[in-house]
């Protein structure tokens, strides 16, 4: 679900096909019949943006039919935990949880805590984007969460205030019939999928979920994945071979760029960026971020070692290891905020390092307008992408909104080195680091980012060498010495990797993050990558052929942490340390050696057996009970109910997308309450649900990729052999919608939202079908988003019409589900384009609907029955 794996990860899909051939059921739940659906054993069509309802229906099915894996649930999850009686559910509050603050449009999570847990405020800040509540993958690892088991538990799961019963009530209204009404599938489809999942889970079998941006790119995206996690925990499918939830990521090292983040809110290894607050010293940071148990119990060692890697010998215990040099964050500083900052004039200079927001970002039109406000822009790419040439060929120049001669932006286009022209490591979607050799020298001025950043830093430091300004000290004291190689003076990537791996005081390379110290005697650029260069061997470059090793391929590359291939794999054994079944065994406790053994690296204290009980005052891993596999949480339990770490609720709830033709059938509250929106004239929204003007946008649209192209097209629209395979922007519509709107197969259609109108060739296909939703027939429009104005094959960008509305946890935009109108024929040219768009209704202020003249919009009739 939320993934079109066959199309977007075809090579990984070989394993799915192989599983299918070995008898696995492959179920694809998707708004469209894709190449994945065609090769699955079952396809269920649902309306885009309703996955939580569908998944919630599965949760409901499991609980109503008693299909949960009881022992796993009781021992390994927080299902038995009793929640404070202050907690109120969406059941009680019409789609809200307790703790809602209307003024700040955010939740306080005090009422979501375990009964008996310390209600004292968690450190850090509660506004959106504040660090302590970032869902970073290890979200909620900070203080305030209890060590060991929750204070009050009911192992019978009968207590009405226990998580299990709260869950049951929470999802009680997600019946197959209700789900079908929301999703547009049949109740039997839901039952089929739920039954298949249950039948293939338990001691002897496991089932897994695969998702991609079809789940994350929603205003309630984090909760999509949470719902799947709840299902997998109820069915006992986490930490076990063949189980899990697989996130298929879209870029070669997008995982690496999250681990060693080029993200505003975290430092390497998911350490939160320090927040702007009164007490801002290192000790306060460490106290607020250290969990009483589990892997987050030694944050001090992680951050101090990082600061030592950043500032080297300059970082000492006396100067707080230069902690003060770190800039502080004070809310959301994500890319979309930067774009709005450009519009407002507060962001003046910008670097684009292999990214093309003029095509690839949500509401790409806004990004082009924003780029035109910059003082200067540096674009580093292989080819002349649209973001580099917006000043002369942006569509807004054609409409007259921009004039080249009026755009003040100074643009530096810097040619980049390709993946074969530089050495370095990528981290793939399964956390596997793989080293790449440099095969050839880059030509001309083409250089790697390593070169660019190193030399940019060098030049700036040289220019400021004599500065006495205190604000330059962090820069001048930075450890910025790397060996240079070759005629271009390319920094040695392996030297950087060694810095990431970390060293002992004597300079020897570390082999595990457990060796990290908080006293400044170790350095480590990213604690989760510690060990990738153990013993002086670049383990990311290991390439033992798969036929010479086991199925796990553990000697190919290096997976973080500690080359573990399955996280939480302690859960592959029962509480007593024995495999749940012979068929599904992975790790087990070996009494003889008093260690965990098996086919993987144990993700647990290796010598803590099932009988281990933490002594008083134990920290970190030593504080985890021998029966609790989930060592990222201080209680060692997986959180079905999230008392903290998620800003939009402890349990997932179905909300309609920001833009949807429908009201929320389950609750009065239509969309996710704390979702992020940005009201301003340049960033309008379509009216939704029952709002006036919503019927101008009667169709559901979704954007997606095709096998033949890559994201915003910079690496495919400029490549002849890929360009010819999908040479033009098209939209996919059903025969019924084509008949309704007089769209001619092979002809043109114009897709209109309050932001813009784009044209696309019409592909009429039964692979996308009208759905019966809440008693109405709804049509869906499919839009691949790869095209722009440059390259071999060109076309309008689907992102021009999608809204800019974000998930409140991770600030990811909702491009997978929105509303639109569609009309036959090509879009108007020049200023007439804006006239068409402005003839449609729009919202530019919260709660406000501007009704525009309707005569240009023949399609504003509701398609309802």
């Amino acid at each position, binding site marked *: 679900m939320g993934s079109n794996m066959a199309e977007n990860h075809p090579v990984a899909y070989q394993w799915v096909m192989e599983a299918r051939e070995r008898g696995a059921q492959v179920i694809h739940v998707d708004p469209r019949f894709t190449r994945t659906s065609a090769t699955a054993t079952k396809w269920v069509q649902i309306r885009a943006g309703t996955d939580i309802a569908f998944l919630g229906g599965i949760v409901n099915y499991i609980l109503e039919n008693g299909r949960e894996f009881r022992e796993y649930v009781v021992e390994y999850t927080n299902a038995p935990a009793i929640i404070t009686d202050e907690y109120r559910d969406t059941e009680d509050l019409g789609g809200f949880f307790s703790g809602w603050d209307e003024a700040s449009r955010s939740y306080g999570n005090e009422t979501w805590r375990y009964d008996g847990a310390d209600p004292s405020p968690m450190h850090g800040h509660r506004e959106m984007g504040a660090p302590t509540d970032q869902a970073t993958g290890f979200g909620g690892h900070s203080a305030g969460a209890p060590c060991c088991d929750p204070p009050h538990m009911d192992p019978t799961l009968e207590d009405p205030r226990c998580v299990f019963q709260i869950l049951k009530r929470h999802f009680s209204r997600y019946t197959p019939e209700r789900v079908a009404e929301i999703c547009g599938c049949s109740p039997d489809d839901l039952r089929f999928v739920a039954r298949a999942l249950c039948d293939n889970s338990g001691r002897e079998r496991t089932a897994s979920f695969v998702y991609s941006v079809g789940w994350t790119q929603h205003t309630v995206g984090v909760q999509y994945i949470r719902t799947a996690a709840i299902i997998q925990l109820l069915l006992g499918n986490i930490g076990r071979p063949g189980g899990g939830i697989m996130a298929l990521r879209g870029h070669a090292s997008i995982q690496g760029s999250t681990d060693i983040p080029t993200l505003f809110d975290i430092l390497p290894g998911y350490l939160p960026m320090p927040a702007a607050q009164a007490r801002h010293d290192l000790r306060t940071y460490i106290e607020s971020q250290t969990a009483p148990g589990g892997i987050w119990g030694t944050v001090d060692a992680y951050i101090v070692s990082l600061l030592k890697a950043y500032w080297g010998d300059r970082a000492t215990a006396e100067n707080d290891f230069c902690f003060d040099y770190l800039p502080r964050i004070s809310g959301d500083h994500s*890319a979309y905020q930067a774009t709005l900052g450009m519009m407002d004039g507060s962001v003046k200079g910008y670097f684009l390092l292999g990214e093309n927001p003029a095509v690839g970002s949500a509401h790409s039109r806004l990004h082009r307008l924003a780029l035109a406000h910059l003082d200067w822009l540096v674009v580093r790419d292989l080819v002349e992408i649209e973001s580099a040439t917006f000043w002369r060929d942006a569509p807004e120049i054609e409409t007259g909104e921009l004039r080249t001669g009026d755009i003040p932006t100074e643009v530096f286009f810097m040619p980049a080195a390709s993946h074969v022209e530089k050495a370095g490591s990528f981290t793939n979607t399964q956390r596997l680091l793989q080293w790449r050799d440099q095969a050839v020298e880059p030509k001309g001025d083409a250089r790697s980012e390593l070169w660019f950043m190193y030399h940019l830093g060098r030049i*700036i430091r040289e220019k400021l060498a004599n500065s006495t300004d205190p604000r330059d000290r962090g820069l001048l004291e930075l450890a910025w010495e790397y060996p240079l190689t070759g005629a271009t003076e390319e920094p040695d990537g392996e030297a950087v990797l060694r810095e990431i791996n970390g060293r002992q005081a004597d300079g020897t390379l570390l082999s595990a993050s457990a060796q990290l110290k908080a006293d400044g005697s170790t350095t480590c650029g990213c604690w989760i990558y510690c060990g990738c260069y153990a013993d002086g061997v670049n383990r990311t470059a290991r390439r*033992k052929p798969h036929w010479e090793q086991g199925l796990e391929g553990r000697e190919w590359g290096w997976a973080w942490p500690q080359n573990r291939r399955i996280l939480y794999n302690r859960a592959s054994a029962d509480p007593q340390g024995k495999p749940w079944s012979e068929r599904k065994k992975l790790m087990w406790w070996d009494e003889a050696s008093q260690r965990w053994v098996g086919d993987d690296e144990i993700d647990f204290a290796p010598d803590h057996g099932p009988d281990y009980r933490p002594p008083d005052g134990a920290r970190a891993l030593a504080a985890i009970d021998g029966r609790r596999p989930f060592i990222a949480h201080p209680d060692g339990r997986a959180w079905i109910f999230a008392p903290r770490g998620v800003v939009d609720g402890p349990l997932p709830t179905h909300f309609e997308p920001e833009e949807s033709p429908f009201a929320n059938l389950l609750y009065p509250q239509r969309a996710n309450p704390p979702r992020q929106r940005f009201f301003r004239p340049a960033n309008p929204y379509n009216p939704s649900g029952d709002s006036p003007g919503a019927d101008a946008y009667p169709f559901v649209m979704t954007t997606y990729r095709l096998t033949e192209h890559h994201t915003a097209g910079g690496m495919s629209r400029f490549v002849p052999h890929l360009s010819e395979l999908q040479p033009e922007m098209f939209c996919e519509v059903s025969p019924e919608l084509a008949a309704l709107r007089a769209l001619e197969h092979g002809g043109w259609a114009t897709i209109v939202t309050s932001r813009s109108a784009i044209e696309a060739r019409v592909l009429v296909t039964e692979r996308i079908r009208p759905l019966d939703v809440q008693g109405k027939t709804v049509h869906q429009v499919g839009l691949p988003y790869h095209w722009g104005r440059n390259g071999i094959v060109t076309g309008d960008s689907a992102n021009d019409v999608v809204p800019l509305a974000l998930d409140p946890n991770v600030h990811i935009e909702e491009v997978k589900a929105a509303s639109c109108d569609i009309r036959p024929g090509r879009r108007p040219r020049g200023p007439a384009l804006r006239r068409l768009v402005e003839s449609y209704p729009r919202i530019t202020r919260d709660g406000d609907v501007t009704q525009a003249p309707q005569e240009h919009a023949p399609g504003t009739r509701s398609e309802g029955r």
Partner: protein
Amino acid sequence: MEPLQRLRSLPIVRQVRDHDLLGLGRAAQSEGSAALEPRTKTADAVYHSVCPYCAVGCAQLVYVKDGEVTQIEGDPASPLNRGRLCPKGSASRQLVTSPLRQYRVKYRRPYGTEWEELALDTAMDMIADRVIATRRETWQDEIDTQDGRVRVNRTLGIGSLGGATLDNEENYLIKKLFTALGVVSVENQARL
């Protein structure tokens, strides 16, 4: 070649000599075909790489001859892709050798209508100047918050976007340098 040998190597003669009267088999084989070799065999060197497109991490073999990439294909030894590649991975050679690739710095001055040439060193120097100036101009030592006036030590006037297609080492230097510069809005596609 001796004239006689030349004569004997004529296809029309070989038709008889090779018992290939119809001229459908070896007799029709040209000298070029007989000497054919795959360019993977004649390459100067083979390098290990990883596909630059999606995050599956397919291992690639990069064949180089005379300093040019002549072929990129899957590495059979990889337990991930077992030598296989998707169409994008299969097009990697064309990606890195595309005639549309840019190899020169280009500069567009404010309000300019055309690209201009710029030396790489000059460009680096100018970018460094821009960073220094904008950083000075937009620097924040402290801001007002609900906790009162607090230290932030940063600039919001500069941002960066990108990294998901870059190496870990590159991301490390990006984050390290920008953090030291006080640049907060460091972002990449992982968000998008």
